[in-house]
């Protein structure tokens, strides 16, 4: 059975809006929908540039449209996703707002698809608390009259210049069999590599193929790797508290050249080695988690290296070799 690791990636974008989209967003907080003049046209949502000529459009040429408009085309969303604007079935529609030359994409809330048709008249249902975001309009609803959902907290106090956009995508990644094999071996305190049958280079970390010869590597190519090595390079990371970062103090990631091989294990954690004492040439040995400990699949190290939790000073004297620092591959 294939195992899966599920992870969600959040992209917490903060976008600056500029003179035109900023004015559009500020208008939304005032329950006004703005377009921009481009020749004879009124483009909604507004653009900074004429789409035909590329000429700059004048932000002073912004005009109010709607608030009501006509549905030009629509589709029904029977099972909304978590990120869709409404939690119950709704329509996405192109709506030509009164006075606009182009249709606006937005949600239309009619409860059921048979209540909607091309040519239907709709008006915005405003959010009571508006921040300058297309979602300040919860949806369009049938009729000519706009409405406000809940108590109206009024327009923004200052022009809106920034916008948050938190995109999130969830992935289910299958764990390749080679990784499971390496993880199981790590329970017995073994570090498994794989030797390419063509060039005889040895790869670590469950790569599953030789990038030089472009051939796949199977179980028959497995070899045991030594448990001692030398630090060839390192970085000290001062954690920035972005979403998902669990470290709070500066920490080291080191590259370890395993004894008697050409194998470099990159980005390894260290154990009982203060960041101030990490240096090129330092001798280290593998540190292992107890065999019965659960290993976190999703962690940067857990997937590939299993019970190998990092590298601990071996107490041997440093290796003095000026070329060591170049060994990162």
């Amino acid at each position, binding site marked *: 059975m*294939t195992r899966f690791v599920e*992870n969600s*990636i959040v*992209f917490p*974008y903060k*976008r600056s*809006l500029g003179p035109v*989209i900023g004015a*559009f*967003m500020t208008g939304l907080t005032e329950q006004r929908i703005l377009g921009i003049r481009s020749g004879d046209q009124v*483009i*909604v*949502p507004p*653009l900074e540039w004429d*789409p035909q000529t590329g000429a700059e459009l004048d932000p002073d040429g912004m005009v109010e449209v709607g608030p009501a408009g006509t549905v*030009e*085309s*629509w*589709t*029904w*969303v*029977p099972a909304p*996703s978590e*990120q*869709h*604007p409404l939690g119950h079935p709704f329509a*996405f*529609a*192109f709506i030509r707002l009164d006075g606009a030359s*182009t*249709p*606006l*994409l*937005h*949600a239309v809330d009619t409860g059921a*698809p048979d209540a909607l048709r*091309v040519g239907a008249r709709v008006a915005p249902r405003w959010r009571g608390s508006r921040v300058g*975001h*297309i*979602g300040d309009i919860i949806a369009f609803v049938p009729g000519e009259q706009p409405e406000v959902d809940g108590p109206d907290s009024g327009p923004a106090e200052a022009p809106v210049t920034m*916008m948050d*956009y938190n*995109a999130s*995508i*969830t*992935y*289910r*990644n*299958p764990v*390749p*069999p080679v990784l499971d094999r390496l993880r199981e071996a790590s329970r017995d305190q073994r570090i498994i590599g794989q030797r390419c049958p063509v060039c005889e280079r040895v790869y670590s970390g469950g*790569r*599953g*193929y030789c*990038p*030089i*010869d*472009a*051939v*796949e590597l199977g179980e028959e190519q497995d070899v045991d790797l030594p448990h001692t090595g030398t630090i060839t390079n390192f970085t000290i990371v001062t954690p920035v508290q972005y979403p998902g970062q669990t470290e709070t103090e500066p920490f080291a990631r080191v590259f370890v050249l395993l004894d008697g091989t050409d194998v470099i294990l990159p980005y390894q954690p260290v154990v009982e080695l203060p960041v101030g004492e990490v240096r090129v040439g330092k001798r280290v040995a593998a540190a292992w988690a107890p065999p019965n400990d659960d290993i976190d699949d999703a962690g940067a190290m857990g997937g590939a290296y299993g019970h190998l939790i990092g590298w601990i000073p071996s107490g041997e004297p440093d290796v003095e070799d000026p070329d060591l620092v170049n060994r990162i591959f």
Partner: protein
Amino acid sequence: MRSLRDVAVVGFAQDTAVKDRDRNEVEIISPVVREAVERSGLKRRDIGFTISGSCDYLAGGPFTFVSGLDAAGAWPPVKESHVEMDAAWALYEAWVAIQTGDVDSALIYGFGKPSLGDLHEIWTLQTDPYTVATLWPSMVDLAALQADVYLSSSGRSDRDLAEVAVRSLRNAQRNPYAVVSEDVSVDELLGRPVTHRPLRDTDIAPITDGAAAIVIAADDIAKRVCERPAWIRGIEHRVDPQHLGLRDLATAPSAAQAAERAGVNDGAIDVAEIHAQFSHEELILREALGLADGVDVNPSGGPLTSNPVMATGLVRIGEVAGRIMDGRAGRGVAHAAQGPCLQQNLVCVLEGSN
């Protein structure tokens, strides 16, 4: 653009699956690249340029395309490039590189494993980030809106959509790389539920993991290694505005421009492979490309039956080239698309005789 140097497709390979659970991207690409190179008759180390097309959002990691290069063999160092586009655009860049005289041959590959995430939501991220992406219309939501616009302005009905789906599903029965295929009648299909008004599930390309690779070569090299090379007679790409409201969604102006510039109708077309991920897109593109009624469109079953994202457009070129190389067709057109509602379009005209 018309060519300064004659360039031909000399090798093509592909592989697909509904969900390729046990293999990562590199393991999916490796055999495909190897097969395309073997078929080309060129040695890997003699190919002058390597370029791929893929999308990092599919795997959810930065620079995932770099690991894809492991499948192509990049040591000793090779001249290499990448486009965050369907690999048909990678082929365009490779074709330009050969035009400059910089290189004489190229390996192009594309790959995608959309089963890892939610493809239809991921494509939302390529829409306008201020007023569109924030509402999260999925790729299917936007396509359904386009289908509604098209049907109401063309006077066609969902029977026309069903006819496209039925022919695609039947053709797919002869394609080992199709992930869906079926012998079904139009009436039977019209009895199935409309899932994204006006579209049914058979009008929507299936989620497909896969990869494809093509080898192209110039002039004498192509003639030396290939008995009947598929010569690229014209290749062009164009883009429409991102603002969905600025376009008449019932048409694909950038596809029409690209087709005209590529010289699609400078001669008779035997076969067309079209990157239509929705039934109505095929109808819009037939018009944009100016295809006659008798043209054999998507004999492979097309993207409605096999859609290895980021390679689907390259597969279109490969499918047409394959039919030319084995003598089944004399002249054909391949089309690739990217972006919501056919925003970006590439057209490639291929021919057998020199």
